């Protein structure tokens, strides 16, 4: 499989819903697709990164209305363990058709839970729509705090939007200030688990999306699985999105491919380096555990 995974179509898109666009991170793809899927009965509810009890700290949440979806729109650049709710969503919440949004690693977790449902009773056939968001790396909440408060000199509670793009981490405050830090400085804050991650564009999602490749305010979208493709076609037919052919936007798929290749090459090197990190008594290398080889 190449670095962008299997997909049936790639396109640049933006929601036609103004309320969603106001709250969304990029083209509002995720919120709009869930709103459409709720409306159409494709899902009974969705697991999203809802508002938490500290500023910019997400809390995984099962939502069933558009209002709740809107309250959870936008990117929080810190871990939201959305998969923690997939069994719960089918039980306490009684959902038969679950939608879930997640980073590529979270989508991997969902597919493993479906193929090897070891402790995931009655979940496998209830995942109705798994939406992936592109992801280069993620941060602990404390790391995000350090970036916003120590590097960008802004209070977490005063920030209205955070964004990563064009080599910078940018925060926008409620009083109109814009603070930035270079992306290369955030490397030491990245959670270690991201350094062995071999997926950038959520290859295993039904549909995945991110900002990279498309103009500001637009998103790049991959419709991947049979199910994802049907949902995407339905949403287009229902007028949920404006679209542009991906080969007619700048910077287009080339940039997505470039970043995906860079991430995967770097992290594959990290995975390989772990194999020879130490030293045995006989002088041969001693390795760490490799999840891509065995448990």
């Amino acid at each position: 499989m190449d670095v962008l995974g299997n997909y049936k179509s790639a396109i640049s898109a933006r929601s036609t819903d103004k309320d969603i666009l106001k709250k969304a991170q990029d083209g509002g793809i995720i919120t709009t697709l869930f709103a459409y899927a709720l409306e159409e009965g494709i899902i009974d509810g969705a697991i999203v990164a809802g508002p938490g009890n500290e500023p910019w700290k997400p809390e995984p949440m099962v939502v069933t209305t558009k209002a709740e979806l809107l309250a959870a729109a936008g990117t929080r650049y810190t871990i939201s363990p959305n998969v923690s709710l997939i069994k719960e969503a089918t039980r306490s919440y009684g959902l038969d058709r679950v939608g879930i949004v997640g980073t590529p690693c979270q989508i991997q977790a969902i597919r493993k839970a479906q193929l090897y449902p070891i402790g995931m009773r009655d979940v496998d056939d209830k995942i109705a729509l798994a939406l992936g968001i592109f992801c280069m790396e993620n941060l602990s909440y404390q790391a995000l705090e350090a970036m916003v408060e120590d590097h960008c000199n802004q209070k977490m509670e005063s920030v209205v939007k955070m964004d990563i793009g064009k080599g910078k981490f940018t925060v926008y405050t409620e009083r109109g200030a814009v603070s930035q830090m270079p992306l290369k400085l955030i490397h030491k804050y990245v959670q270690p688990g991201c350094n062995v991650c071999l997926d950038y564009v959520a290859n295993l999602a039904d549909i995945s999306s991110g900002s990279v490749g498309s103009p500001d305010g637009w998103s790049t979208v991959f419709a991947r699985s049979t199910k994802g493709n049907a949902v995407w076609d339905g949403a287009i037919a229902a007028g949920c999105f404006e679209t542009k052919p991906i080969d007619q936007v700048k910077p287009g798929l080339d940039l997505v491919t470039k970043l995906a290749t860079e991430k995967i090459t770097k992290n594959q090197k990290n995975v390989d380096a772990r194999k020879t990190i130490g030293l045995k008594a006989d002088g041969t290398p001693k390795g760490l555990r490799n999840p891509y080889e065995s448990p």
Partner: protein
Amino acid sequence: MAEKITIGELHLSGCTGCLVTLADTYEGLFKLLDDYADLVYALTLVDVRHVPEMDVCLVEGSCCLDDKISVEELKEARAKSKVLVAYGGCAAYGNITRFCRGGQWNQPGQEAFVPISEVVDVDLYIPSCPPCPQEVRNVAVMAYLLLRGNDEQKKLATAYLTPLMQLAQRGNEACGCDLMYDVINQGLCMGCGTCAGTCPVRAVTMEYGKPNVNRDLCIKCGACYAQCPRSWFNFDVMNNYEGIMDAIKGAMQ
């Protein structure tokens, strides 16, 4: 359709939750029994007294060393089966029987309980307490493909079953601590939350994006670690998730 495989369940020191799980696949069980497998040995479900020859033996429960019959039957099951499966947390890891110190009714003299791999070689683990019916179904279908399928099916089944066989090689101690030792301490956790969603006794919560295990609640079932995408993630199988899920669904229709 090729000849069916034979499956049995040997019941040792377990609560029968594993056996109930086998039946919990509902219509799935009938389909399995109609087309793929004959159940040749199982408490209540099959009227056979002595451990027979079988392709796959699912062993439920840990082995009580103070009960000679358990030890003998386990060895007999090993000798008479092609694939011996530690079915459920107790067989694989001891699970709650790890806390037994004897003195309990109605067998106060029985106090030594071990995961079955202390007594026999085990080929494959299906952890969790209770195991999940869909996992049992998947393993049963894959075992059928492995023993009766064409070359391509054998290859798929081997790839699918390999991590569960590797789990059996990994050892017979499980705890929520594995998330610390073998995932977080190894620099592999990315905070997906799967472990917390998996734990049958809710011993795992996510605190600031990482699992926190309440070790007093943990019953040592091994589900959290096995389900974690950073315990193993076999791309050769996962990349084909759609095809495999469709195939299993098709097989069960």
